[in-house]
């Protein structure tokens, strides 16, 4: 039967994974979500609390999917506090996904925090098409590094390299993801760079990659009310992150003067990223 992805589907939380002291992954059975593309998102309803856009996390069981949340505001904290057996509502998956160019041989993925979620889904595709993959995972400090082992597992059938950077040097390479990236693109040739994470980081990646003529695909995050292209709360320039994105290519990103700098708040006013 064809699922109307716009209809709310109630799912039960079956497993919870503690990723870090502030990040948890919640797994549930939902066929439509399990088939999501890398970069697609769900609108996740936390009954009586909030509805949040969440990138669709992979899960090892068939017909299952997950969401990974960091507790921050009211909405994300109410999701974070959910227990096994409790219900969530989901609609979607919405939006476009990362594309793998036909002739790609070697690619780089750069992500930080929950931005790794769409990159892991992409990693699974890259693994099955045997594309040489370098993944850079960035975090502030060791205790905030997660998904490293999972990433290695996702890429086990292809030539791969997983690099971790921490700002304080407590684990992996000391510094920012962009420094590690710059070093790598100076010595090896990458066909595409995929990224998801803080927008300032993604902007830096776009600038560095463009200088080396490497195309970028970035998955953006915005506050969303509808997820279906009518409210404009997710707009950046003349694009809607929920419909035209979440993934944008270098050309589009370069045309968006707000990229890395501004977003709209709940009222629709432009605000600056700190």
């Amino acid at each position, binding site marked *: 039967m064809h699922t*109307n992805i716009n209809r709310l589907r109630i799912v039960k939380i079956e497993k919870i994974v503690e990723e870090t002291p502030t990040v948890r992954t919640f797994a549930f059975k939902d066929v439509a979500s399990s088939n999501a593309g890398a970069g697609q998102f769900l609108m996740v309803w936390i009954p009586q609390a*909030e509805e*949040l856009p969440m990138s669709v996390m992979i899960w090892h069981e068939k017909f299952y999917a997950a969401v990974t949340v960091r507790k921050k505001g009211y909405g994300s904290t109410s999701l974070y506090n959910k227990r096994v057996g409790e219900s969530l509502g989901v609609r979607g998956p919405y939006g476009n996904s990362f594309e793998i160019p036909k002739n790609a041989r070697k690619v780089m993925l750069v992500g930080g925090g929950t931005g790794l979620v769409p990159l892991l889904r992409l990693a699974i595709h890259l693994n099955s098409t045997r594309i040489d993959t370098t993944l850079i995972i960035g975090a502030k400090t060791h205790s905030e590094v997660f998904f490293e082992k999972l990433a290695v597992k996702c890429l086990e059938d292809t030539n791969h390299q997983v690099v971790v950077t921490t700002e304080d040097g407590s684990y992996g390479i000391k510094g920012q993801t962009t420094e590690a990236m710059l070093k790598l693109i100076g010595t090896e040739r990458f066909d595409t760079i995929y990224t998801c994470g803080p927008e300032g980081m993604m902007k830096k990646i776009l600038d560095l990659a463009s200088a080396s003529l490497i195309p970028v695909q970035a998955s953006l995050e915005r506050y969303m009310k509808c997820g279906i*292209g009518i409210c*404009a709360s997710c707009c950046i320039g003349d694009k809607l992150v929920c419909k035209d994105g979440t993934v944008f290519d270098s050309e589009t990103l370069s045309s968006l003067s707000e990229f890395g700098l501004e977003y709209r708040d709940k*009222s*629709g006013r432009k605000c600056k990223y700190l």
Partner: protein
Amino acid sequence: MFAEDALELRREQSAERNTLSVNFGGMCLRNPTILASGFLGISMDLFRRLYKLNAGAIVSKSISCSPIEGYRNPTIVSLDYSSYLNAVGLANPGADAFSEEIRENDNLPIMVSLVGSSEKEFPILVKKFDRLNIIGYEINLSCPHVAKMGIEVGDDPELVYRIVKATRLHTTKPIFVKVGVGNTDVLSVASVAKDAGADGITAINTLRAMAIDIDTGIPVLANKIGGLSGKPIKPLAIRCVYEITKKVGIPVMACGGIFDWEDAVEAMLAGASAVQLGSVLATEGLSSFHAICTGIQAYLKRKNAKNVMEIIGLAHKY
């Protein structure tokens, strides 16, 4: 492209302009498909994109004196592929930020939708926008899910009169009043608005409605009650357009469940001078303006009409 092709295209485009152009309530539009208030209505960049995609005019999100954050999510839920329930709570950037947003507008036909709870707020709002390049105002007196604003105002004919009159005193630009189906008869609200000096009516807004998730038993919208839009409300919109144009005799923009060119033609036969598109944009995407224009164009050709205005209100004789 060869020179002749370019010429041919230009001829076609200008022919389309002539057949689809409409003139009503002090506004002259290249075609009768208009963006409804609340849909993508906060960004100048998006307005440019919509205009390129053939929107005849654009109505902004309803703007209040101060910014409003609106309700917590869920604020918009889709009931299926053609009907939607929303309680956004009139979230908007406020008059200062929005006038800044559209300050550089030179040629886009923008109407600013205004919302407030008393006659004092509207002159303040008009002062922020009147010197900008806009083609008119739509006063939202019909939002069904915010207390003391919208339909609670629209249900009070005396307050409607004072608001429209106060606005009229401060602008010479066209004023449309957006009505809904509340507790007061839509005809009496429309005629009060006309008496107070409105140039036209927009009919209708969403209808108070609700959805409950049966698994959890919890109302889905954070605000519990919201407004229903989309296909199910079209017959009501058609009825309101028909009665207002026939009995009150004032130009009307039809709004509510207009999804294809057939709906647009039906609304115009009922008396509408133009149609506003809202929910269809979620279902069919932004190409709807162009698709509906093309459909109307073909219909006019079949009916041997030279301009779309010839079909306005044709159903009145029945």
